[in-house]
């Protein structure tokens, strides 16, 4: 199972944040948005388009990535040259933009299907994982690696960090024992670049602020 394909970070987070049986989101829309916003920014860091320095995003390369979702974020960053604060960008992308981009990317890959639910007050469109097996991949992969005492690669470390930062660990890391946790935390400290540590920490802070301001 550990050989299951690794998707882009935000896609993996989206799948992890959805119930494998019912396809329902395990997070509030606000918290999911914050996590996906950070994940897309993280992907741009992996693409070597962005750096995060002192809480500000620095554009280091403005060439499109070839992936529509991250390119859309990059374009937006180029258009809004005067805004660079990471917390502003996380909040902005979390207004629905990040969720929308990720849902579309996963739909194109055939991993999500559009589901229309008719209710009393009109119908509600949602995207649910096409296959419950697929939705369980990322979480299973991380647990398997940790269980075997193997090292996670950097994108999976960021994914694990965002799982903690959004509170998803209460679903995903429930079965992790103290030793596994200790190993994971040790990898956060030693193997996650400072820039990405900051990205996850800012996301976690944004999630906390949303709780305090009753937006979560």
């Amino acid at each position: 199972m550990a050989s299951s394909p690794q998707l882009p970070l935000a896609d993996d987070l989206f799948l992890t944040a959805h119930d494998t049986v019912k396809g329902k989101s395990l997070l509030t829309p606000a918290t999911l948005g914050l996590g996906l916003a950070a994940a897309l920014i993280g992907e741009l860091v992996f693409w070597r388009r962005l750096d995060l320095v002192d809480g500000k995003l620095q554009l280091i390369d403005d060439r499109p990535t070839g992936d529509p979702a991250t390119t859309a974020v990059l374009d937006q960053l180029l258009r809004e040259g005067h805004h660079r604060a990471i917390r502003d960008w996380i909040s902005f992308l979390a207004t629905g933009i990040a969720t929308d981009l990720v849902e579309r990317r996963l739909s194109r890959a055939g991993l999500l299907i559009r589901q229309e639910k008719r209710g009393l007050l009109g119908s509600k469109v949602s995207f649910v994982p096409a296959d419950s097996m697929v939705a369980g991949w990322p979480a299973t992969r991380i647990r398997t690696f940790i269980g075997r005492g193997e090292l996670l690669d950097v994108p999976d470390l960021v994914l694990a960090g965002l799982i903690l930062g959004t509170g998803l660990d209460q679903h995903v890391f429930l079965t992790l024992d103290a030793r596994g946790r200790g190993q994971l935390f040790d990898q956060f400290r030693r193997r996650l670049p400072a820039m990405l540590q900051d990205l996850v920490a800012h996301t976690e802070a944004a999630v906390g602020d949303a709780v305090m301001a009753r937006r979560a």
Partner: protein
Amino acid sequence: MSTTASPPQSQLSNALARDRLGVAAVVFFVMSAAAPLTVVAGVVPTGLAVTGLTGISIAFIAMAVVLALFAVGYVAMSRHIANAGAFYAYISQGIGRPVGVGAAWLALLAYNCFQIAAYGGFGAIAQPLFKDWFGVDIQWWVLALVCWAITAVLGVRDVAVNGKVLATLLVAEIILVVVFSFSDLFSSDFHASSAAVDPGSLVGAGSGALLAMAITGFVGFEQSVVFSEESRDPRRTVARATYISIALIALLYGFAAWAMISSAGDDVIGRAGNEGPDLFFNVASDQLGTAAIHLGHALFLTSLIAAMISFHNIISRYTFSLGREGVLPRAFGRTVPGTGAPKNGSLAQSALGLIVLVLFAVMGWDPLVQMFFWGGSAGGIGVLLLITVTSIAVIGYFAKNPTGEDFWHRIGAPVVGTILLLVMSYLALSNIATLFGVEPGSTPTWVVPLAYALITLAGVLWALVLRSSRPDVYSGIGLGARSATAASTGGGFAAALRGDQESNA
């Protein structure tokens, strides 16, 4: 962050602005914790009966003036610090972290007094009503336990649902208070009372008791600054909303209390003693008829429920914030992922509420006077003390960081406000016997100040323990979830980076 100063039209600024709150939304939120009927029909008549003092309207007005002065510096400082919703953040940065932690613990106790007081109020008031409506005589503590269960369940569920319900009830309550009070004016017994608005009562004996009663009506106004980073215009929205809330509360409560006292006849204190919370409804009954009275009673009960839910949410978030910063165990910094509700803070509050309810039921203590009124006014004194210390902290903060605000916001209003608040705190503490309607020197008069002193001292000591044993946690106190370094933002990931194992919870 407020660094997004007016660049040309930007999608980002617009999108963020769209999500932000205007003045009305913030006022709404503040008023829902203030629970108008609970104060007007619950606190005021009970207070009349217990203290024998009638100058409550002028006390509301005086309190409003002082709180508005306090709010000048308080709101100004909220623009400069993170985690603006919590008094201890101001105190940590303006005075020092040990006092800040002491204040945080005092705040938890004071807010819990309010929250639990509402259970007693509900039980005591619902018991005769249920007998009247349904012909069943249910013990007050059974009814209170039902409310407790509702609050406990809602506390760990979606908070947004609570918000809509609270908003609807609030509007209905305000309309009802206004209608009842105006109809008092046409009562045959109406005789414009000068005692209720006599400024002399603010300097006479028992003035501290009046002020302590008045502040209970305003508690919740301090929550406006929670939204300083969520508001449309950080410089204006929260400030306006705070002043409007204070003015609205003072006018509504001051007028309603005056109208009630004016139309209650010669012996208002005697009637308040006999009729209790029904006094508010009885004086308007000849104009409005029984249907309005029933509606009033029903809303009175929902008002108490709204108050208990509001304070429950304030407490669970306060606990959440302290858990995130590592001042309380990290487990309190957790939320339910699917709802964003601060789960463990909520559960802890519910546990405490249950213990107190059971204690009152077993000991046979009076739910209306001893739980509702004493609890509420003890909470009021606690909040008054907190506001006073926060006011000093505002002066301290701006003495160290004088940029960005003018003289009036930094020094003028805070100094005047602090002096007045110190006088009020002294009066309130020295009038506890009058406030509680007991003999000077009897147990309740020293238990309340002693409890506050002990819990504050415990908080200070805990901060000193953290300073020597956990300097990383200590340095983050009062900085909220927004500090710049990755390892001090609170939450599970930050704890992981720091190497905390206790985040396993």
